[in-house]
């Protein structure tokens, strides 16, 4: 048993007493100790998780939960009571939340054991985890390359087998793109399916929490534990989560798959294109039908996103002013001076850039030309998807146009960095569920296949992804770094 075993295998192992929950927590700590000085996925490791696991098993023993006694980690933008939560930003250094995010509470109730908090791009703004205020995370497949972002720590920790699953957040691709870069499964649920209470807000109309795992079945199991209405999040949908694992029949006969040429533009590398084309052919062999569809407003999605997300961020991040929590700059003459000094020293450059763009887009005289127009484009993009889903059940594309790029390659060119999210961003604008599943390895680097589903139809999405994964026979992918590490 190690953390490339499925959650059901780990669960069975615990039931058969082949391992205890504290032994699994200890194994996670050992893996982190062995690997994380090279990967740098964790911002915080809870040394007391072994004792917590022991105590937990005593109190919840005999329960049916598959996640009972399973270790996991959270991206550090989800609040954890009594455990520092920084969003990888200096401005929140030392912040100890007095409450936990709903997802953390639900996993806790399910018996899962929190091992630590994961690195990310500061406030989830970035696509490489190089924008972390503390240090960059490295890709377990090639330590000279980025793990993607912004949930880079989560993807890397799962890919390297430090934890069997993690939660990330996805505003424009921040779960799916790092999942693709690190060779793991990443699921962004429909907007509203998972409570955002306790998730530090970046762009509230786009943010959604979801799992990073080794398999689609594991993603379904974790989603089951975190999905559902929460009174503390007014955007949480009033939906009774269905049995997601029951949807994994392996049967995609008659499933209608749509392929949009807009997602196979010139920015998609040929190796990625080939791997995705092969995956589509395999789905066809399994009995799915494939037809071309059109999403004509895709070309405007990136522009709309990079106005809407910063606009919402500029408003959400106004709360970091050095008054109620976080760090306050010293030597301020008056209140305004304190605000400015605190925010200017506390935020990193990408965060400041986006606050300024957002403030500009919302400022008097520019609102109609930028923010309002972007929201109208959002309507058209959503309508494109609604039209397409009249004739297909799932849309398939690359998750990212390239495999993992080198550290430093794009960090000085914000616009090029933004382009790495070109296949994932339209999905957030439309609020739809989407998943990235590994579909090949090129030059030693994983490639991700993206599947997009109808709003709140995670069942069809997971069924398609699972059938592909089983037929492809690749999961779980194990990077060389994680081989030969003794449990």
């Amino acid at each position, binding site marked *: 048993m190690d953390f490339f075993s499925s959650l059901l295998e780990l669960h069975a192992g615990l039931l058969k007493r082949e391992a205890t929950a504290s032994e699994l927590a200890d194994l996670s700590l050992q893996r982190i100790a062995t690997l994380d000085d090279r990967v740098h996925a964790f911002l915080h490791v809870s040394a007391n998780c072994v004792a917590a696991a022991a105590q937990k098993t005593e109190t919840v023993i005999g329960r049916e939960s598959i996640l009972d006694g399973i270790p996991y980690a959270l991206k550090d933008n989800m609040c954890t009571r009594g455990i520092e939560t920084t969003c990888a930003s200096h401005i929140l250094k030392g912040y100890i939340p007095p409450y936990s995010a709903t997802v953390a509470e639900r996993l806790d109730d399910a018996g899962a054991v929190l091992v630590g908090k994961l690195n990310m791009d500061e406030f989830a703004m970035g696509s490489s985890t190089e924008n972390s205020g503390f240090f960059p995370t490295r890709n377990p497949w090639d330590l000279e390359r980025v793990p993607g972002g912004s949930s880079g720590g989560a993807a890397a920790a799962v890919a390297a087998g430090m934890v069997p699953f993690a939660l990330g957040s996805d505003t424009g691709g921040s779960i799916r793109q790092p999942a693709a870069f690190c060779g793991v499964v990443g699921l962004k649920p429909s907007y509203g399916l998972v409570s955002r209470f306790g998730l530090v807000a970046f762009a509230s109309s786009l943010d959604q929490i979801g799992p990073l795992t080794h398999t689609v079945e594991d993603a379904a199991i974790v989603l089951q534990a975190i999905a559902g209405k929460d009174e503390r999040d007014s955007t949480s949908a009033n939906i009774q989560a269905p049995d997601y694992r029951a949807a994994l029949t392996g049967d995609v006969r008659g499933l209608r798959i749509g392929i949009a040429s807009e997602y196979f533009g010139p920015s998609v590398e040929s190796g990625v294109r080939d791997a995705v084309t092969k995956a589509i052919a395999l789905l066809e062999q399994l009995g799915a039908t494939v037809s071309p569809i059109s999403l004509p407003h895709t070309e405007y999605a990136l522009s709309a996103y990079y106005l809407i997300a910063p606009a919402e961020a500029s408003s959400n991040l106004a709360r970091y002013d050095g008054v109620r929590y976080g*760090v*306050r700059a010293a030597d301020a003459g008056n*209140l305004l001076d304190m605000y400015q000094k605190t925010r200017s020293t506390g935020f990193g450059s990408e965060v*400041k850039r986006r606050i300024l763009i957002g403030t*500009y887009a919302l400022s008097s005289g520019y609102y109609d030309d930028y923010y309002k127009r972007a929201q109208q484009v959002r*309507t058209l993009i*959503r309508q494109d998807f609604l039209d397409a889903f009249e004739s297909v059940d799932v849309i398939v594309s690359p998750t990212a146009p390239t495999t993992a790029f080198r550290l430093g390659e794009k960090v000085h060119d914000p*616009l090029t960095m933004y382009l790495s999210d070109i296949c994932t961003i339209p999905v957030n604008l439309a609020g739809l569920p989407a998943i990235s599943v590994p579909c090949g390895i090129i030059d030693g680097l994983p490639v991700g296949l993206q599947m997009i589903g109808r709003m709140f139809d995670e069942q069809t999405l997971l069924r398609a992804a699972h059938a592909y994964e089983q037929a492809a026979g690749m999961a779980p992918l194990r990077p060389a770094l994680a081989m030969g590490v003794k449990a």
Partner: protein
Amino acid sequence: MSLSRKDVLHVATLARLHVTDAEQEELAQELSRILAYAAQLNTLDLVASLAGVEVTSHMSVSSMVTRPDAQGESLPPEVVLANAPDAEEQQFRVPAVLEG
């Protein structure tokens, strides 16, 4: 669309950010490039096709959600103040609003 250093300074003031002279120049260039890209939303074809299109601000909220106006649990004051950089007598303390 091109931003001047003066524009950057104005927006930074609105956002309560301090930018140095060197940062002003760099940000003017970076923000201009990003806004030039976003200016594709102002192309004539698109603007024409947007006439009468409703805005989408949110995916799931079609009407305001309200909760019953009932007393609930709140965090105790000492817990709320525990993260404050400066607090006194159950209040957040800040530097003087006006100098002198």
